[in-house]
């Protein structure tokens, strides 16, 4: 097992009190495996990713029962140890390539820096590695590109550079936070394909954070659905899509506009909005928006086994198909 996280909690101190951004999230990823964490904005998925790399903002505190990378406890690591890990064996692809790259340095310098920070390598070796990877991510005339500044590249090109940078030190695990949402659809598909091909050929583990269920259905081995700071459902991908069990998962899948819905007719949608995490909720977080909600849902609900690595945080999992309300 590459990374193992048990009962991760992240609290953020705000002017209005403590916000329980992530509550008891557990997962593990093995070599070559892809874990997708899906959820809407504010559900805690991005901050979960940042906490893995030790990049949380100062106001956030992390606690976990266990958090190991390749068997080593990450909570006990010193800053130097963490730095040696980050960008080396564990790297991250951010959403916005323009903010992930330094506008003042050429991409060549940025790629070389990463490599030489972690390896005893000459400039020449580092340069060769950078050229090799730029070619791998589909950048033509890589040698000249090394001298380009980020602003001279298009969004798609920049994201390719960010991917190449994440791969410089042959990481064992990649954390990708919405790596393609800022890009055009056609480039999105191309880059995703590239990322998965590279992942397969290098045998990396990947944690992909996204809100795009279409994307998840196509690349995930395992899926975690988060809602308002909690895991509401976790399952192998084929089980999640053939037998979505939490009402939220089902509602989310039902509300994606796609050809299965009659055109120009109202889509099934989820009434209301995501609750604020400032007030700690006792029972089910989806309570106010759930068509199946009852008084029994007001007490704390644990993740329940449905069978075969499939868990859902709902006491009414067995209750037939949910009829979703159509609201405008």
């Amino acid at each position: 097992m590459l990374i193992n996280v048990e009962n991760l909690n992240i609290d953020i101190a705000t002017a209005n009190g403590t916000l329980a951004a992530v509550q008891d999230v557990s997962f593990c990823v093995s070599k070559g495996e892809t874990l997708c964490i899906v959820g809407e904005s504010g559900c805690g998925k991005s901050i979960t990713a940042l906490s893995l790399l030790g990049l949380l903002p100062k106001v956030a505190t992390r606690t976990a029962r266990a958090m190991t990378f390749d068997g080593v406890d990450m909570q006990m690591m010193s800053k130097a140890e963490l730095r040696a890990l980050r960008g080396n064996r564990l790297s991250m692809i951010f959403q916005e390539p323009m903010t992930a790259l330094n506008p003042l340095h050429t991409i060549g310098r940025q790629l070389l820096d990463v490599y030489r920070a972690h390896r005893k390598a000459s400039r020449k070796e580092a340069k060769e590695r950078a050229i090799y990877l730029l070619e791998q991510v589909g950048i033509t005339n890589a040698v000249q590109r090394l001298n380009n500044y980020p602003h001279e590249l298009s969004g798609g090109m920049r994201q390719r550079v960010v991917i190449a940078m994440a791969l410089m030190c042959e990481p064992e695990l990649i954390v990708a936070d919405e790596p393609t949402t800022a890009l055009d659809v056609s480039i999105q598909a191309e880059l995703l394909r590239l990322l998965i091909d590279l992942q397969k050929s290098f045998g990396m583990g990947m944690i992909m954070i996204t809100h795009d269920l279409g994307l998840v259905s196509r690349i995930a081995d395992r899926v975690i659905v988060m809602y308002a700071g909690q895991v509401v459902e976790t399952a192998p991908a084929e089980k999640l899509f053939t037998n979505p069990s939490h009402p939220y998962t089902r509602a989310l899948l039902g509300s994606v506009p796609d050809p299965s819905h009659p055109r120009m007719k109202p889509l099934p949608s989820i009434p209301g909005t995501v609750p604020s995490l400032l007030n700690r909720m006792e029972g089910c977080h989806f309570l106010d928006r759930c068509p199946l909600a009852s008084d029994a849902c007001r007490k704390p609900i644990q993740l329940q086994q449905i069978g075969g690595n499939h868990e859902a945080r709902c006491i009414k999992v067995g209750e037939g198909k949910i009829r979703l309300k159509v609201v405008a």
Partner: protein
Amino acid sequence: MTDKPVLELSNVSHEYRGRRGIFGQSAPMLAVDKVSLRVERGDILGIVGESGSGKSTLAKIMLGLLTPTEGEVLLDGRPAGSMTRRQIAERIGFIFQDPYSSLNPRQTVGKIVAYPLYLRGEGTSAQRQERARKILDIVGLPLRFFEAYPNQMSGGQRQRVAIARALITRPKLLICDEPTSALDVSVQAQVLNLLLELREEFNLMYIMISHNMGVIQHMTTRVAVMYLGRIVEMNTSKRIFEEPRHPYTQLLLNSTLTVAQGAGVPDLKVDTAKREAMREHPSFIAS
């Protein structure tokens, strides 16, 4: 009168002038290249294309914010060039992509929504407020939001405010630039449903500009596909999705990742040769 298209563009081109400054020169850039289209009663026209394909420039031209360097824009059969901003605004409303930046954070929702009426000098303050209340109710916002500020609202609620503001002057046509891309999936459906409902109620026409092919397929009657400033394919929504003819349309549809477990990501490498071929390919315009 009634059979005149509400909006008609004929052979509209727009070229951004090159700049000459201390950082050197930039070449002029043809953002929109001989675009013709019309929006008729009952239409929801979708405009799709990659970033830089000219969608937003086209939207600006339709709103009268940009004067095209060539071609003609007709509103209700009259040249838009001869109309004042106000006359154009009476016919066309606009909804921006990002409801977080399109609403003034220092004004209450009631003020924001009533402001277009104030600009037009319509009614008394009390009458304007009354109409604002009514329209907020129509877009499904509880009255308690009337005195609220945008930062107290969620993204979906803010987008409803933006829709209310666009509709209070009763335009016939609403241009929606990525109306749901800043919203969460679970809220997106609410806003799309609202737009469909309002269409019935106000007899509205929409132009939907979007990246999301799922949204376009669900919401539109006709679709125009833009590539490098030109419309490369235009047809009924049904035909575009069932038998796309232009290679760029085909690429767009193939790269859309619908929910399909285990289908993987298609291998779509677009190299320079393919781009060139798509650029050279003749357009398919069905009226």
